[in-house]
């Protein structure tokens, strides 16, 4: 369970223009997010950029995704800028980050995806390019991100099948191997799938599956 103390400790020195308060089953973080270089305590010219934000952190973070809003109007409300009309920032595909990163603390989110998102926004302002790439909108983006997280080719049927296998606490060895050889998993790519299972644990795989195909 995320605590106000943990959030305050994460922003205390590094983000002195943010304020955290506890509200009904969530923590609100508001103020100016400073974009700076890594490992630089004090840049002589000050931060590279500042974005006015409001962040809503559910108490079930990191199981539940934080919401980040840009409230200063600096980012044009245009889906191509990866922002919704209400200022809701599409920072990253959450499950992809959960699978790709080991440290899911709030501090790690602040220094990782959030920093990359706002540095990216500044970079796009200046150059018209996304420095770390971008995902397609909607379902296509989800599929691409999940395929990346699993390390497999981005084909929907294969992705869904992998995720069904990975959703099991103990993937069934008699199911057909996802490689399409027709052999049982236990006689084919069992080792590879178990390595993937460690990287993308069942709870994350189940949520990926649910978002890709709500019928599941």
């Amino acid at each position: 369970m995320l605590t106000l103390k943990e959030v305050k400790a994460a922003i205390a020195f590094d983000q002195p223009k943010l304020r955290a308060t506890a509200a009904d089953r969530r923590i609100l973080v508001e103020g100016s997010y400073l974009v700076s270089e890594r490992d630089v305590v004090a840049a002589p010219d000050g931060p590279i950029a500042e974005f006015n934000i409001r962040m809503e952190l559910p108490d079930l973070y990191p199981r539940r995704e934080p919401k980040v809003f840009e409230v200063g109007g600096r980012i044009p409300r245009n889906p191509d800028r990866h922002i919704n009309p209400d200022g809701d920032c599409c920072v990253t595909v959450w499950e992809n980050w959960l699978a790709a990163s080991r440290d899911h603390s709030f501090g790690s989110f602040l220094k990782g995806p959030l920093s990359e998102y706002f540095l990216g926004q500044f970079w796009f302002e200046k150059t018209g390019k996304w420095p770390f790439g971008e995902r397609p909108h909607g379902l296509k983006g989800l599929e691409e991100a999940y395929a990346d997280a699993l390390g497999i080719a981005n084909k929907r049927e294969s992705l869904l099948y992998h995720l069904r296998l990975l959703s099991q606490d103990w993937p069934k060895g008699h199911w057909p191997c996802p490689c399409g050889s027709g052999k049982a998993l236990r006689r084919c790519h069992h080792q590879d799938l178990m390595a993937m299972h460690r990287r993308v644990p069942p709870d994350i795989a189940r949520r990926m599956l649910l978002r890709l195909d709500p019928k599941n």
Partner: protein
Amino acid sequence: MTMHDKRLAKTHDDILEAMAEALAIPPSKLEEARSRYEAIGNWLDRPESTLADYDPAISPQGSFLLGTVTRPLTDAEEYDVDLVCRLNATKAEFTQKSLKDAVGYEVGLYAKAHGMTKPDDGRRCWTLNYAAGAQFHMDILPALPDAQRYQTKLLAEGYRTLAHDSALSGHAIAITDKTLPHYDQPTEDWPQSNPTGYGAWFRNRMLVQLTESKKAFAKRERITASVDEIPDYKVKTPLQRAVQLLKRHRDCMFAEDCEHKPISIIITTLSAHAYNEETTISGALQSILTVMDRYIEDRGGAAWVANPVNPAENFADKWAEEPKKSENFDRWLGQARQDFALYLRANAFDKVPELLREHLGPQLVDRAMAAVLPVAAAGLAAPAIITSAARAEDVDRAQHAVDQINRAGPQSKPWARS
């Protein structure tokens, strides 16, 4: 000084260094204090001294030993020079009272011979007051060597490593306290203190940067002396600078409430714990202000700032009975963190936020800034120039930040829900 020989600041650290320099004791004052306490030492050890047989030795303790002295807040206040007067004698030869009186007698004679007022008889110390212009007083702590008993106690409490480290526990002393019932009786269980051990611990926490600072000093002054030959007081490490700035911040913040302000030994101890040999003052402040409170232990519900050379001693022992002290520490740390972070993280080096300026003393900050910034920076035109120049460089810095992330592997890509 002309514009040409001014060393202009280019970074936050240049400004912090200038501020720390401005709030440190001036070298001439330090030299004066040093020569005065040496004079007292010589007096106590003169042939006709009643203490001469006991080889009395005077040495500094506290901030004078640690190199973290800060100027008093106003010219009317004085530097408090804490000294230990150690006699080479045993508790068989003295009671606490007779030791206090014996040292007091000689300190009194010294005062008389130099036309000074009679020394004040404190709970543990004699206070020697100089003429108003001197701007300091000396607190002289009568003491006897008492390392063996100190180390035995450490062993009994389970602190084996400390007990066997002669630098940390081999110079412990027995001191006097006139409020104790057995003050005038021959006993073994005198109060103890270990300022030299604490000084060694503090020095150890910054040993790498102390050596580096001395090397840099030798190079700058073009002297060929080895690092060991350069006295510690000639240089300042980022830890010492940070402690000075934090103490000053505390002094200004609690100018109206001296009684309950966070005490220097707590700030110093927690800072030294949190310091990790950072090479800059800004880096030291970042580490210290981020984690210093994690070194406050919870022992059975009591906040405990352990004396690093005697962990059974709690520097925060007053917090339990006076909660205001603990609240003030939290309030101070929160404010110091905010003030320094806002300057370091959110501002250009030549823009000191108003609250930090206020909490370090506006006059001191302005003086320090004027000494290291071009005169024009104080005018109206300069900020605009600096800002536009900075903007041109922002993209270069962003490029650098992007490269850093690409090297480490980015963790995310922006997306859009619909």
